[in-house]
C-alpha cells in the first residue's frame, strides 16, 4: 500500500496526537487505508468492466479547477483599498459558508460512516483513535479544497501585502478548517445523542438542508447589509466582533502584518488560535467516545405500525393509474416520486437550492422597491408597475434545473431491476421518471408560486405568469434532450453542480432564451401565440426525446 506524502507530514505532529490519548501508529494506519480506498473506488455502473475504473479522488481533484476559478473572483476583493482587517473579514466571511456547506453536504457521509465501525470496533482500537482518524481524513480533503479556494487569494495577497501574508493566511486557513470540522462533529454528536434510527437520519438531513439554505440566504443578506454599514464603523472595534469567527482570523492576519495593533486585536487573535484548537481537543478527548457509542443508533430498525399516506401521494397514485398508454410510465411516476422525496442524498441537493430561491425571491422583490416610510399599498402599486413578475423565472428555473438528479441514487445498483423486466425498450422507464420529476416537484412549486405571484401582481399578469410557469416543463424536457440519457436512478450520487461546470451556463442560457422569447412575443406578437408555441414544443420534445433502445444505454452493465 502506498505511503502517502501527507502522512509523512502528519508524522511531525505525532506527539500532539499522543498527548490527546490517540494511538498514533494505529490512527496513521487507518487513515492510510481510507486514503487508499478513496483512490480505488469504482464509480461506474460496470463492475465487470476493468478497462476504465473511474477513480473517486480523480473526480474530487478534477472538480478542483472550479474552486480555483472561484478563488480568482474572491481574490479581487484583496485589491480593494480598504484596511487589511476589513478586507480579510469580508474575505473570510465569504469563505466560511462555502467550507461549512461542503463539510455538511459532502463530508457528512465520511463523518457518519458506519462501515468502518463494523471493521474497527470489534478490534482493540479505542474510540478516540477511530474519531481522530475520521477527523484527520476529512481534514486532509478539506485542506485541499481550502487550498484550491484560496490559491488566487494567496498570490494576490502576497503581491499586495508582502510574502509574510502567505504563512499567516495558511495558518488562519488551517485553524478555520479545524473550527469547521470541530463544529460539525459537535453538532452531529448532539444529534446522535437525542435521536436514533431513521428519525435521526431525517433529522440530520433536515439540519443539513437548513444549514445550506441559511448559508445561502445569510451570504446574500450579509453582502447587502455591508453596503449599509459605515466602513469606518467596521474597522473600529465592536463587541459583536467577538461573535464572528471571520473577524478572529482577520485579526490574526492583520496583527501578524503589524497593522492596527490594539488590545482588542490581540484578544481576537487569541480567540482565532485558542478556540479552534481547544474545540478540536475537546472533541477528540471528551466528546468522541460519546459519538462512537451513539453512532450505532444509526442502524436501528424502525417499526411503522400506523402508516398514513400523504394526500399528494394518494392522488398521484390514483391519477397515475389513469395515464393513457403505458402502465410502466405510471409505475415510474410513482417510483420516482417516492425516491425523490425519500432519498436523503437527493433531497440534500434538491431542497437547498429550491428553498433558498423561494425564500430569497420575495426579499429581492420587495427590497428593490423598499423605501423608508412606504405603505404596503404603495409598495404593491410600485411592484405591479414594474417588470418584477419576471422574477418568477428564478423559481421555475431552480426547480427545473435539478432534473439531472433522476439519473442518480444512493442505491444505484438496484437498477438491475429494469433489465429483468419484460420491456422491449427502456423508453417508458425514462419517460416515467422525467414525468415523475415534473409532477412531484415542478408542478407543486409552480402552482404555489403562481398563486402567490397572482396575489402580488393581480389578474392583469395572469397570462404572463402562466407562460413563465409553462417554461418549467419545457425547460426540463430541453435539458433532458441535451444530456446523456441513462436508466433513471442508476448512477452513484455526485454533486451535480460540481460535476459539470458547463451545466450552469447551459441552463442560464436556456432560461435566458425562454425569458427573451417571452418578452419579444409580449412586445411584438401575442402571448397567446407564445403559449401555443410552448405547448407544441412540450409535445414535440415529449414525443421525440425518448427514442431509446437497451443497446443505446451502455450494455452488459449488470
Amino acid at each position: 500500500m502506498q505511503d502517502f506524502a501527507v502522512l509523512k507530514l502528519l508524522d511531525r505532529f505525532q506527539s500532539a496526537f499522543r498527548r490527546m490519548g490517540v494511538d498514533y501508529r494505529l490512527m496513521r494506519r487507518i487513515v492510510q487505508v481510507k486514503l487508499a480506498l478513496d483512490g480505488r473506488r469504482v464509480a461506474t455502473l460496470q463492475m465487470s468492466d476493468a478497462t476504465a475504473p473511474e477513480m473517486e479522488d480523480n473526480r474530487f481533484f478534477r472538480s478542483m479547477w472550479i474552486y480555483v476559478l472561484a478563488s480568482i473572483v474572491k481574490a479581487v476583493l484583496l485589491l480593494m483599498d480598504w484596511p487589511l482587517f476589513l478586507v480579510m473579514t469580508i474575505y473570510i466571511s465569504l469563505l466560511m459558508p462555502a467550507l461549512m456547506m461542503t463539510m455538511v453536504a459532502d463530508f457528512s457521509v465520511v463523518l457518519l460512516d458506519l462501515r468502518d465501525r463494523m471493521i474497527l470496533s470489534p478490534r482493540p482500537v479505542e474510540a478516540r483513535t477511530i474519531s481522530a482518524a475520521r477527523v484527520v481524513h476529512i481534514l486532509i480533503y478539506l485542506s485541499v479544497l481550502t487550498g484550491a479556494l484560496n490559491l488566487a487569494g494567496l498570490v494576490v495577497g502576497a503581491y499586495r501585502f508582502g510574502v509574510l501574508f502567505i504563512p499567516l493566511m495558511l495558518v488562519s486557513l488551517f485553524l478555520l478548517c479545524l473550527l469547521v470540522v470541530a463544529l460539525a462533529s459537535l453538532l452531529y454528536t448532539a444529534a446522535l445523542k437525542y435521536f436514533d434510527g431513521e428519525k435521526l437520519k431525517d433529522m440530520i438531513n433536515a439540519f443539513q438542508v437548513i444549514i445550506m439554505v441559511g448559508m445561502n440566504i445569510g451570504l446574500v443578506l450579509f453582502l447587502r447589509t455591508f453596503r449599509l454599514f459605515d466602513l469606518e464603523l467596521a474597522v473600529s472595534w465592536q463587541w459583536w466582533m467577538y461573535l464572528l469567527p471571520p473577524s478572529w482570523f482577520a485579526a490574526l492576519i492583520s496583527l501578524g502584518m503589524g497593522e492596527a495593533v490594539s488590545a482588542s486585536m490581540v484578544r481576537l487573535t487569541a480567540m482565532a488560535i485558542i478556540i479552534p484548537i481547544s474545540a478540536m481537543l475537546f472533541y477528540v478527548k471528551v466528546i468522541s467516545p460519546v459519538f462512537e457509542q451513539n453512532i450505532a443508533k444509526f442502524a436501528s430498525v424502525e417499526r411503522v405500525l400506523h402508516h398514513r399516506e400523504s394526500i399528494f401521494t394518494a392522488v398521484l397514485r390514483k391519477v397515475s393509474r389513469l395515464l393513457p398508454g403505458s402502465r410502466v410510465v405510471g409505475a415510474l411516476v410513482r417510483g420516482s416520486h417516492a425516491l425523490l422525496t425519500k432519498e436523503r442524498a437527493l433531497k440534500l441537493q434538491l431542497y437547498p437550492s429550491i428553498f433558498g430561491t423561494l425564500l430569497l425571491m420575495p426579499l429581492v422583490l420587495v427590497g428593490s422597491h423598499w423605501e423608508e416610510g412606504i405603505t404596503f399599498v404603495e409598495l404593491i402599486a410600485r411592484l405591479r408597475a414594474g417588470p418584477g413578475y419576471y422574477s418568477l423565472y428564478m423559481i421555475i428555473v431552480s426547480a427545473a434545473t435539478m432534473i439531472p438528479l433522476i439519473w442518480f441514487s444512493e442505491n444505484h445498483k438496484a437498477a438491475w431491476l429494469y433489465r429483468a423486466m419484460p420491456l422491449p425498450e427502456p423508453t417508458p422507464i425514462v419517460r416515467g421518471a422525467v414525468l415523475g420529476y415534473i409532477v412531484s416537484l415542478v408542478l407543486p412549486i409552480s402552482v404555489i408560486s403562481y398563486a402567490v405571484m397572482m396575489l402580488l401582481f393581480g389578474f392583469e399578469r395572469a397570462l404572463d405568469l402562466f407562460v413563465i410557469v409553462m417554461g418549467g416543463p419545457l425547460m426540463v424536457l430541453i435539458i433532458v434532450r441535451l444530456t446523456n440519457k441513462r436508466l433513471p436512478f442508476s448512477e452513484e450520487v455526485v454533486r451535480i453542480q460540481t460535476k459539470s461546470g458547463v451545466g450552469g451556463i447551459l441552463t442560464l442560457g436556456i432560461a435566458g432564451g425562454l425569458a427573451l422569447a417571452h418578452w419579444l412575443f409580449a412586445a411584438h406578437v401575442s402571448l397567446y401565440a407564445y403559449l401555443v408555441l410552448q405547448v407544441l414544443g412540450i409535445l414535440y420534445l415529449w414525443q421525440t426525446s425518448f427514442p431509446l433502445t437497451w443497446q443505446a444505454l451502455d450494455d452488459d452493465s449488470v
Partner: protein
Amino acid sequence: MEPIIEVKDLVMSYGNQAVLKGVNFRVYPGQVIGYIGPNGAGKSTTIKIILGLIAKYHGTVKVFGEDIWKQGVFYKGRIGYVPENADVYESLSGHEYISFVGDLYGVPAEILAARATKLVTLLDLSDFYHSRISSYSKGMRQKLLIIASVIHNPDVLFLDEPITGLDVNSVMIFKEIIAGLARQGKTVFYSSHIMEVVEKISDRIILLHKGVVAADGTVEELQRATLDDSLQGIFSTVTGFNNHKGIADHFVAAVVG
C-alpha cells in the same frame, strides 16, 4: 415433453477469461433444479444470460421453446428472479418497493395489493412493511426479495442464494414453498452453496465445474455414480477435491505456529 429452458453450447467470457466453456442442459416444467458449483464456476453468469441481462455470449439459450433474443422480452414477464446480493432502492419502504416491482410487471393494482399483503403477513414482515428497507436485517431483505420475485405469479423462478440470513424456521417455510410451487407446475432454478437445503428441495442436480456441466442427474443417480452418500460428498468427488483435512491441519498449524 418440451423443455422449458434449453441451454446449448453456451460460451461466455469476461475479457480473456472464459467463464462458461460450453454449458448444456435442459430443464422441464415442474422440475426443481439445484444448480451448484464452486465459487466462480459461472452459476450467476448463466442465470443472468438466461434472463437477458448479458448479451455477449455464444451458443443457444431458449426459454419457453424459443431463443431469448429472437422472441422479444415478454418471456421475462413469466420469470421471477432473486439475484445474488441483490441491490434494492433502500430508501423505499418494503411496500413501495413491492408495488413498484408489481407495477413494472403489470400486475393489476387490486391483485397486487391483496397478494402483497397476504405474502408479507405470512412471512412476518407486516410490522416493517412501511419502514425503509435500509433499516431491514439481512433476513428481512431476503424475504422481501423472495416476495418481489413471485408477485407476478411467474412460471419459472431463478433463485440465486435466496436464503442467506433467513432463520431456521423461515428456511423450513421456504423449503415447503418451493415444493408447493413445483407441485403447481412451476419450474425452480435454485443456486446455492448450502448443500443440505439443495439436497432436500431439488429433484435434479446440475453441477457446474470449470465452465462445463460436470454432473447432471437426481441425487440418487449421482450417489450411485460417485459412491458418495451426501451431496457434499458428491460435490467434492466431482470437483476433484479431497484434501480438506490436509489444508485444515496446515491452517491450524500456521495459526498457532
